């Protein structure tokens, strides 16, 4: 068999090369349409040759394509399209009917000026290269990259949270030692308070008895001889005996009241910081609330007046130290929400087979976008160093472990109400230890 002449060889290659090749003249009539174009467009060459490109393929972007071809003619220069900006010129099926990944063949196109003998561009040749595989690989790479970027962002976030948690750990460690210290000091104070208290009791009765003796003596000295009488009267006037008698009783009474207050504070401190306690036990929530209010009295007394609307409450099975922590959180938050001076109202009552405690403030209120996040760990609106962002999330988890609910109702500018509902019976006493 004879070899093909070079012209015939060129024709063969142009027709059979695995690249789409077609040529249009100045009027966009198709003058060449190779095998690749025929196969993929399902329009054999005889169907399209001599016909207008846009009549044969009305879906082509006509205005743009016309400019592009005119450009090539005017500049006698190449023009290009890339799949990254224009996925395809012709919508052809891709070579991955099974493995998929894209909707249509990705194409890179080159527009070549076809010059005549005089160097004028009469026709424009377009090559259509199938770059689907590259495009798919590129997309996969881009997706992996995006995935890696996402993971990196998550890791950065985790690291920030870890730092936060570390700081929180230091803080709670500090708080725990302070709590232990307070409990120890409270215990130490209890002993001297005990004997001072008992001595004061004795002292009070001695004072009583002394007063009786003094009463018996009163007036009797008038019967003494002059010299002795005036000496006794000088003594009585010198010490202002009437006032002294009155004040002595008052001093003893006040001292006993003062001691009672010290005892109560010590007791509250001990109640509050019962560190080891994690077993649920029956507790009087009103007692818990009062204890908490005593502990935080200093923190809130300049900001808010506390109004109590206590209802009838049964004893509730709970871990009192944890519930105290929740109460403290809510009351301190309520006071901090108040800008100048306001009221913190605590309402209690029964609801269903449980009890509720509501803490309402007349503070600034919580905007809706903040409200969505207030129970998130580490979320805080307080200045750096003031809040750890853990108070409410810890409260939330404590109430959740007790089988209860914590909800918030807030109006910006009017105030907020946090409401806790707790079942009377602890759901799983054993689990409360965690």
């Amino acid at each position, binding site marked *: 068999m004879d070899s093909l002449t070079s012209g015939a060889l060129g024709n063969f290659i142009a027709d059979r090369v695995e690249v789409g090749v077609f040529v249009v003249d100045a009027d966009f009539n198709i003058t060449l349409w190779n095998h690749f174009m025929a196969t993929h467009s399902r329009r054999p060459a005889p169907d399209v040759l001599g016909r207008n490109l846009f009549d044969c393929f009305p879906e082509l972007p006509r205005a743009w394509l016309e400019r*592009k071809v005119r450009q090539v003619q005017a500049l006698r*220069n190449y023009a290009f399209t890339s799949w990254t900006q224009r996925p395809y010129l012709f919508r052809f099926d891709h070579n991955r009917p099974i493995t998929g990944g894209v909707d249509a063949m990705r194409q890179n196109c080159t527009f070549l000026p076809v010059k005549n003998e005089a160097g004028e561009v009469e026709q424009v040749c377009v090559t259509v290269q199938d770059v689907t595989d590259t495009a798919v690989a590129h997309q996969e790479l881009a997706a992996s990259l995006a995935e890696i970027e996402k993971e990196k962002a998550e890791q950065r976030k985790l690291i920030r949270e870890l730092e936060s948690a570390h700081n929180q750990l230091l803080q709670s460690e500090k708080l725990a030692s302070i709590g232990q210290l307070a409990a120890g000091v409270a215990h130490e104070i209890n002993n001297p308070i005990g004997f001072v208290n008992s001595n004061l009791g004795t002292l009070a009765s001695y004072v009583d008895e002394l007063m009786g003796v003094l009463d018996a003596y009163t007036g009797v000295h008038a019967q003494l001889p002059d010299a002795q009488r005036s000496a006794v009267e000088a003594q009585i006037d010198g010490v202002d005996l009437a006032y002294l008698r009155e004040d002595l009783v008052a001093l003893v009474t006040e001292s006993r009241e003062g001691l009672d207050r010290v005892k109560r504070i010590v007791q509250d401190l001990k109640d509050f910081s019962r560190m080891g306690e994690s077993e649920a036990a029956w507790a009087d929530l009103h007692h818990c609330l009062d204890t908490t209010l005593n502990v935080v009295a200093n923190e809130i007394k300049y900001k808010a007046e506390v109004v109590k609307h206590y209802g009838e409450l049964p004893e509730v099975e709970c871990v009192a130290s944890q519930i105290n922590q929740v109460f403290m959180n809510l009351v301190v938050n309520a006071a901090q929400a108040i800008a100048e001076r306001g009221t913190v109202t605590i309402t209690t009552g029964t609801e269903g087979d449980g009890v509720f405690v509501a803490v309402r403030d007349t503070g600034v209120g919580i905007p809706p976008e903040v409200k969505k996040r207030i129970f998130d760990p580490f979320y805080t609106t307080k200045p750096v160093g003031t809040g750890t962002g853990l108070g409410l999330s810890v409260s939330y988890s404590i109430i959740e472990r007790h089988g209860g609910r914590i909800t918030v109702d807030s109006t910006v500018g009017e105030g907020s109400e946090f409401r806790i509902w707790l079942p009377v019976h602890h759901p799983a006493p054993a689990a409360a230890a965690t």
Partner: protein
Amino acid sequence: MTTALFSEDQRDALQELTNIGMGQAGASVAAVLGEFVQLSVPRILVLKPALIPAALERIVGAEKVTAVRQGFHGDLRGEAVVVFGAAHCRELADLMGYDDSLDEAAERELLLDVSNVLVGACLGGLAEQISAEMGFSAPSLMASEAEVATLLDVSRMDSPCALFVEVNFRLEKRSFACHLVMLLPEDQILVLRDAIDRFLASL
């Protein structure tokens, strides 16, 4: 060693050839866009690679830019860089047959299209003057909204010096402007010099 590669005569000839080439380029760009184009007189420098970023910054200013590169090959081999300022070429969308509402991909394609026209016209104009045959590779986006100084990684250039030809484009009726820089490595400068000599001999 700045322009020492060229004699005075060669340099003048190159400037003249470039001027004529750019004049033709302006005419053909105007024909394609249908609007009158203003072109600066081309500035020709021979620079060490390390000095190219500074030269670019001097032309464009310190603003953030978007740049397209395109390689050319054949009798002359090098790369052209088209640098667009912040306004980009949205202005030209209708002239290039694009819709008014451009998505990101279309905007980039428009950028590449405009660059291809400018590079083709300028290089083609020059090639014609020195009777050189030239082909072009597809243009690609180099950088988007980047600092001018970061456009070129000169540490990757192994040519000891480069010919730097700079032209500014401006459309009369629109607020579109861009800078085109042609860069030829040293061995191509010698090719160009021979071509200039042939041109001078033919006079």
